[in-house]
């Protein structure tokens, strides 16, 4: 990597909390990127305030036909799905015995936290009464998939925050606290895996209620399974994408070999998923829909080729897995494909049979979404700079 700099891992205990030489404006990276991120975050905050003050009319195109739009369909669903890297990685490291991936465990949990944050903030702007976001604790309806999602997300956020605390404790040298959390790590990880499995699939169950409104290409009683499977395969892809980007932005040495090994899992997971989705369409005798040349079928092909078929084929080659840029691009395609899938299920495939008013997200809906993700990227950057996010690998992964 060009910017491997001195190659030292980013954690030392002696460093003062705020070293002005460490601030973004003095780094070798142009500060422009950070300024842009900050401005975008402020834009999102502004849109939030306008929405609270005036309702939805000025900043969204939501209407009674499309009660859920970009903020739910994209931010909430995608945020939670991408946050799955937290549970898959923690599971792989602590339960499956994949000790060698430990250098990525903390980062993956942080990505998880931020992904879920994306959901929570989007919910806050999207809910009619954000101050009531904790109402599922008081009023119960165990039959509602949304109720289950709400509970699992609350519990799992707590689990992730616990999983992440060692990084903070280590930073401030709180040895005792660190040991305590360390002893709880296995139950935490197992609990987190159970919660994740449940709510990743329940996000799919949300759409089981609406068999008539969803396009047949996407509606299936197996939606919960597909949501879960895709959350699992996007985990490793997300680790590769974020680790690669972080190494660029922080001029940090990349554990390239390790990522190449991790990438091996992707063709397998993607293959299983592809098989399941095609088999489901075949089982429902709906394969023909794929070749009707409709708008839906075109989008379906786009989703499957970008997000599943092409990266699956690419990553099957060792040359691709070993090449940092190619591996990054293929994994990024997996992530983009997953985003497209969630948007397809929640917005594109959504057709109200009557009185159709259409829905194309308002520019400011995109604005809020982009600003929110910019803000989360900023948080990640700061955390990566000031917390021991990448514990040193044992047996030094070679570059």
């Amino acid at each position, binding site marked *: 990597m060009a910017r491997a700099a001195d190659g030292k891992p980013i954690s030392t205990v002696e460093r003062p909390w705020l070293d002005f030489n460490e601030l973004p404006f003095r780094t070798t990276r142009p500060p422009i990127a950070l300024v842009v991120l900050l401005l975008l975050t402020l834009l999102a905050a502004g849109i939030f305030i306008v929405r*609270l*003050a*005036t*309702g*939805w*009319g000025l900043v969204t195109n*939501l*209407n*009674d*036909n499309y*009660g*859920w739009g970009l903020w739910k369909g994209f931010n909430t669903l995608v945020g939670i799905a991408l946050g799955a890297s937290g549970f898959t990685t923690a599971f792989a490291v602590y*339960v*499956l*015995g994949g*000790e060698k991936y*430990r250098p990525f465990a903390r980062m993956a949990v942080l990505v998880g936290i931020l992904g879920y944050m994306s959901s929570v903030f989007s*919910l806050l702007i*999207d*809910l*009619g*009464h954000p101050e*009531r*976001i904790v*109402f*599922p604790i008081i*009023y*119960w*309806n165990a*039959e*509602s*998939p*949304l*109720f*289950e999602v*709400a509970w699992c997300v609350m519990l799992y956020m707590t689990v992730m925050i616990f999983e992440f605390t060692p990084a903070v404790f280590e930073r401030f040298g709180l040895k005792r606290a660190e040991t305590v959390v360390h002893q709880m790590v*296995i139950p935490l990880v*197992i*609990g987190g*895996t*159970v919660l994740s*499995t*449940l709510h990743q*699939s329940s996000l799919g*169950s*949300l759409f*089981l*209620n*609406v*068999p*008539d409104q969803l396009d047949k290409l996407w509606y299936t*009683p197996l939606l*919960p399974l597909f949501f879960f499977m895709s959350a699992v395969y996007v985990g490793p892809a997300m680790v590769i994408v974020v680790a690669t980007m972080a190494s660029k932005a922080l001029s940090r040495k990349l554990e390239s070999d390790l990522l190449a090994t991790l990438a091996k899992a992707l063709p397998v997971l993607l293959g299983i998923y592809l098989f399941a989705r095609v088999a489901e369409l075949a089982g429902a005798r709906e394969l023909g829909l794929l070749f009707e040349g409709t708008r839906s079928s075109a989008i379906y092909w786009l989703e499957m080729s970008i997000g599943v078929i092409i990266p699956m084929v690419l990553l099957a080659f060792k040359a691709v897995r070993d090449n940092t840029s190619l591996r990054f691009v293929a994994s990024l395609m997996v992530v983009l494909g997953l985003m497209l899938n969630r948007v397809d299920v929640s917005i594109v495939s959504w057709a*109200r049979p*009557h*009185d159709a*008013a259409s829905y194309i997200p308002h520019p400011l809906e995109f604005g809020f979404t982009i600003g929110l993700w910019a803000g989360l990227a900023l948080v990640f950057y700061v955390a990566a700079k000031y917390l021991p996010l990448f*514990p040193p*690998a*044992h047996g030094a992964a070679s570059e």
Partner: protein
Amino acid sequence: MTHSMLFDAHLCTGCRGCQVACKQWNDLEANTTKNTGSYQNPPRLSANTWLTMRFKEIEEGDKVKFVFGRYSCMHCEEPACATACPLQALHKTKDGPVLYRADRCFGCRYCMLACPFEVPTFEWSQNEVQGPWIRKCTFCYDRLQNGREPACAQTCVSGALKYGEREELLAYAKERIAKYPDIYQQHVYGEEEAGGTSVLYISHVPFEHLGLPTKLGNKAVSARAQDAMFATPIAAVGLAAGLTGFYWVVKRRREMAQKSGSKDQRG
């Protein structure tokens, strides 16, 4: 007593008296609408419109028929909106109507997605202080409790909209379609659709022309999601047990491997 209504499309004259009566009784503001190329106005339900009549021209041979369909809450027997609502803000009352409790709702609008009849609507232009709420037909519950029939049913001059007890209306509807087999479709819509509804329909034209979804099936729409939810606690316990067992196996194996002299795994 379960409150119910029967809409007879053959008798409806499309006068929209019910639509106006609903607005008047419930104090709903008028909407400014655009011409959509149809007599139907407004084109769909909204926060200020809890009942609207659907207008449709259908060709039969060389004649054109003008048909009208009631579009409002069906007060389902097993309402998808209530199953969907995480907070039970929407709930089915024992005597029929599906009602809304604003003090519980947090405005997630999942009910709007879940309702197969596209009924719940939202106050999109209210700000935080005014409070945006879900709005829909209340079956004029305030009137029912005082022994009066719903405003829309009371207004109907042609007898197309009847208010009564569900079993009685059902019997009456069946009797009527049996008596005039040349006129009516031999089916009472709402008897079983989506688990049954409190608002029943009979019609002289196929029900899709009234704007009713005809592929709902007779099971509650939310049955599938309910099944999935029922499995949740079992799945959770099973999964936790399975994963813990799995962890012990992996750990044990690793310990064995370490004992037999392979290198230390800890960093």
